């Protein structure tokens, strides 16, 4: 039983066996290559095809309906090898040029990457690569040796190449490997060459007049013969192991993906602290206040964008594990296009979302503290009722706490900086920052941020969090506080203030956490510590 294809030659339909078709196709392509430069090429090809159709037609009877390889061979014998078509009346140089060019074209077109079993030292990888690039394999071998000596990556690369590059088994494949056009003549030559090299292999004395490179190769071949076989076995079993791992982890990931996206799954565990507040996909959606329709789209797109490569992974694993191959042409390509489509949709969705955050706006509120009684102001933090469970989620560097209630989103921490005042008053500036799709929206969101602090006598207490309405949603909101201290006045940073102070400049370049619990006086140069001289200089 042989597969046939049907072809249209000069308006006639022929059923032709697969192998015969390949040969005929190559034959015609070679001829086309010769004529590609000359005028009337199309006409010549048409004439030739018409004649071939006629010759086929003569062969076909009720009992003989399929064109076989032998028919093609006979027709090529009648028509002549492609070289016979060269019309030498064409300018000699032109012919040469056209011939060489087409020859080169054919060589490149048909050159394929195979492992060369005839010229192999270990697995024939270097020889194959050498053929492919038209260079002596000794250079490739040297490269591998260098890679092996310098770090050992060469071994891994070699093994991977060994697995993925097929061996040239048939004479036709060997011709393709060397880039020779596959003609009957060449195949014949290749086969006889192979025969003679086989004969050489079995002759007891190896006094060949072969090149030195080959001699070295032979010596190595004996040395590596056993090792090579062992390695090949290892490679084969390695393939199985990889196959199993691919299938196993691929399927696991797919299950995890579906649960993670659809359910209340916790795929965003990665961003949560070990303390253990878990944010699910759903929670994030709430936080960013996007519509349910949008959420559905995100679900679908992320399942496909992440799931399809995983599926391909599993399929690859199956391929390695068994010889199972899906014989549907274009299936992979269709899936790939499908995947690209979903990826584009994903980018569009993301872009759509990102548009809500393009504009940034900051609202400043300045408060003058006129009722400070003493020269030293104590900086404290309000009791933290909301965050006493310490729901630490490191979502961004400067956003440490998130809590969502029925109508509000609470965020922490605000960042407190302390600078010198330009008059003799303590001042507090609250900077509320938000983002939106336009300036107006960003401004509104920024204004809607609620933030509180209380000053009573010589104590100022800052809230450790600020809040947004759930309706507005999170827009990368941020609150920064600047406390201005007049020259000559001092502040005491309470223990609790450690969580909000952020990168406060001082004369001694002391770290934030070392500033806590001490009194700092504002001098001309900046903040200076009075009571810490005892411990450090």
């Amino acid at each position, binding site marked *: 039983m042989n597969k046939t294809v049907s072809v249209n030659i000069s308006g006639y339909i022929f059923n032709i066996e697969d192998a015969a078709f390949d040969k005929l196709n190559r034959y015609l392509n070679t001829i086309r290559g010769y004529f590609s430069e000359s005028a*009337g090429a199309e006409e010549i090809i048409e004439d030739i095809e018409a004649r071939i159709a006629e010759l086929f037609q003569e062969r076909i009877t009720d009992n003989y309906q399929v064109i076989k390889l032998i028919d093609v061979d006979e027709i090529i014998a009648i028509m002549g090898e492609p070289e016979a078509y060269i019309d030498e009346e*064409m300018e000699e140089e032109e012919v040469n040029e056209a011939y060489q060019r087409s020859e080169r074209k054919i060589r490149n077109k048909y050159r394929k990457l195979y492992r060369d079993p005839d010229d192999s030292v270990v697995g024939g990888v270097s020889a194959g690569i050498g053929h492919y690039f038209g260079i002596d394999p000794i250079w490739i071998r040297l490269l591998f040796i260098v890679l092996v000596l310098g770090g050992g990556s060469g071994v891994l690369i070699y093994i991977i190449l060994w697995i993925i590059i097929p061996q040239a088994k048939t004479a036709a494949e060997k011709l393709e490997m060397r880039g020779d056009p596959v003609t009957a003549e060449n195949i014949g030559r290749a086969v006889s060459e192979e025969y003679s090299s086989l004969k050489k292999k079995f002759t007891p004395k190896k006094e060949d007049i072969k090149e030195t490179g080959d001699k070295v190769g032979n010596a190595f071949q004996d040395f590596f013969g056993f090792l090579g076989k062992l390695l090949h076995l290892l490679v084969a079993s390695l393939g199985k192991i990889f196959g199993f791992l691919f299938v196993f982890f691929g399927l696991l990931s797919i299950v995890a993906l579906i649960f993670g996206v659809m359910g209340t799954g916790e795929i965003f565990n990665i961003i949560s602290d070990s303390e253990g507040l878990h944010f699910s996909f759903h929670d994030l959606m709430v936080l960013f206040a996007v519509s349910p329709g949008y959420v559905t789209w995100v679900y679908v797109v992320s399942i496909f964008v992440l799931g399809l490569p995983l599926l391909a992974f599993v399929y690859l694993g199956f391929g390695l594990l068994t010889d199972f191959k899906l014989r549907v042409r274009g299936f992979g390509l269709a899936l790939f296009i499908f995947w690209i489509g979903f990826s584009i949709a994903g980018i569009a969705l993301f872009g759509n979302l990102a548009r809500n955050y393009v504009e940034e706006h900051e609202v400043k509120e300045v408060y003058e503290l006129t009722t400070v009684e003493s020269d030293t102001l104590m900086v404290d933090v309000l009791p933290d009722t909301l965050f006493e469970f310490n729901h630490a989620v490191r979502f961004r560097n400067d956003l440490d706490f998130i809590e969502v209630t029925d109508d509000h989103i609470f965020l922490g921490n605000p960042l407190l900086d302390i600078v010198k005042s330009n008059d003799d008053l303590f001042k507090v500036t609250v900077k509320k920052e938000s983002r939106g799709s336009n300036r107006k929206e960003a401004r509104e969101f920024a204004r809607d941020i609620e933030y509180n602090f209380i000053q009573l006598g010589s104590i100022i207490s800052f809230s450790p969090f600020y809040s947004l309405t759930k309706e507005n949603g999170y827009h990368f909101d941020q609150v920064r506080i600047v406390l201005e201290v007049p020259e000559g006045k001092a502040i005491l940073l309470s223990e609790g203030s450690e969580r909000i102070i952020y990168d406060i400049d001082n004369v001694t370049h002391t770290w934030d956490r070392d500033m806590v619990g001490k009194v700092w006086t504002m001098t001309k140069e900046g903040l200076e510590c009075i009571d810490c001289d005892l411990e450090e200089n």
Partner: protein
Amino acid sequence: MKVENTKAQMRKGVLEYCILSILRDDEAYPSDILGRLKDGKLIVVEGTLYPLLTRLKNAGLLAYRWEESKSGPPRKYYRLTELGQQFTQELSKTWTELVQAVNTTTKKTTKS
């Protein structure tokens, strides 16, 4: 210098003249032309003929007409054009002269 090349060149040189001569009497289709050339051992394979015919046609020496065929695609029947006729006569004259010249030259050399 290979003898094969020289042989092929000699054959190629007269090939055009032969094709034109075949067409002088009657129009013909490539297979017919081929049959006669094969008899004379001027051509071994058919492939050689097609580029040649196309070139002669493009040079205005040949013209063709289509004719339906029972055994395949329509066939091209070639015939000489006015120009082709003159061209062939010219060649014919040259050929006769050439044969004489070659004969006399080669006889002399073989004698001496």
